[in-house]
């Protein structure tokens, strides 16, 4: 009989929450994983992804003759807890606490709780004297959170989007099946959308306010407004395209950012203004196809607004995940 020890599980999860591991700074949490792996007598592989960041891979070797299973979980948290709007929210601090049957703390749901479950599952099996034929791998990885380096946002804290797992799979971290404990609300999810991020640049003239009279049509910010209206016309065609739906869900497009001008120098109009789109792509569509399709859309904008010198740049192509077998989610 395999039985999970509630208190031990809560203790493991709390210890993980209590080690801050914002994207770019996951090494201390990986060290804690090594300690936990050693407590289970697992074989430990340390993968230094870059300075301050590591994957910890623990392997419980099987007796042989069975398939291998990997439990994979990311250590990085979506927030640091230092964000001004989260600073006073206790559940967004790296300090776990229990209240009314619930465990609170930064990263508990995404996804340190699951990582603790992996450790406790192996412990429970070992406690019950279970011996498996195949290997069980626990991969605790850095850099999963959806973010990327862009513009002035450079550095490890912006290197997410499977940065750790890409390193993992090229360094021995593979298995015949993987279970990922992302917060799915208890549902089995066999596939999910990927993401393509697109920057659309609209050019204009750099003009001092004193000389801007009658030249509003040269202002890249105002031009971007027109382009944005055109993008909003395009979005339903992407979302409504049956080729972009997956398991009955539409491929959503979000206008995620706009950047242009100098707040500290509002006396000048900027040379260019950028619109940023997050275009969700079904796992059934190759990223190269999605890239071509969105850049065709940008070409259409360039033709529609010939004076704006509209250009597009695709800077994230993170494909969706899809298991080869299985028919339901």
């Amino acid at each position, binding site marked *: 009989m395999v039985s999970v020890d*509630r208190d031990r599980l809560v203790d493991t*999860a709390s210890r993980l929450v209590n080690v801050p591991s914002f994207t770019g700074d996951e090494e201390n949490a990986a060290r804690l994983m090594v300690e936990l792996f050693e407590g289970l007598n697992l074989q430990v592989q340390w993968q230094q992804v870059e300075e301050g960041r590591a994957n910890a891979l623990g392997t419980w070797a099987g007796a042989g*003759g069975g398939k291998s299973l990997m*439990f994979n979980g990311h250590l990085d948290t979506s927030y640091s807890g230092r964000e001004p709007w989260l600073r006073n929210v*206790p559940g967004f601090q790296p300090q776990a606490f229990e209240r009314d049957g619930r465990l609170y703390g930064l990263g508990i749901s995404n996804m340190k709780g699951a990582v603790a479950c992996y450790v406790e599952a192996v412990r429970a099996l070992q406690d019950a004297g279970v011996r498996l034929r195949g290997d069980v791998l626990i991969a605790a990885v850095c850099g999963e959170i959806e973010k990327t380096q862009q513009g002035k946002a450079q550095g490890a804290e912006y290197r997410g989007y499977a940065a750790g797992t890409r390193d993992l799979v090229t360094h021995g971290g593979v298995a015949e099946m993987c*279970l*990922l404990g992302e917060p*799915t609300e208890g549902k089995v999810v066999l*596939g*999910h959308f990927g993401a393509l991020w697109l920057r659309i640049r609209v050019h204009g003239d750099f003009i001092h306010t004193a000389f801007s009279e009658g030249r509003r049509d040269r202002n890249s910010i105002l031009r971007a407004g027109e382009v944005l209206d055109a993008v909003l016309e395009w979005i339903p065609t992407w979302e409504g395209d049956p080729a972009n739906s997956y398991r009955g869900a539409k491929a959503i497009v979000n206008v995620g950012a706009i950047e242009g001008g100098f707040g500290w120098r509002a006396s000048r109009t900027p040379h260019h203004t950028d619109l940023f789109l997050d275009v969700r792509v079904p796992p059934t569509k190759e990223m190269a196809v999605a890239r071509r399709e969105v850049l065709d859309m940008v070409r259409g904008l360039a033709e529609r607004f010939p004076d704006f010198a509209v250009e597009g740049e695709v800077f994230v192509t993170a494909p969706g995940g899809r298991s080869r077998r299985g028919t339901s989610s």
Partner: protein
Amino acid sequence: MTRWFSDASALTRYGVPTVNYGTSTGLMDVELGENLEIDALVKTAEVYARVAMEVCGRA
């Protein structure tokens, strides 16, 4: 809901069949932040142990 992203992206492209299964209980608490129901966490760990036995086989 399958619109979010996960490391299944990199794993499945590398030929590792990947399933996402985890616990959570809807939206985060506005005042208290990230949290999980502990009973659900325990059940999840039990499911993971059973999956390991199923996939790896008992010796």
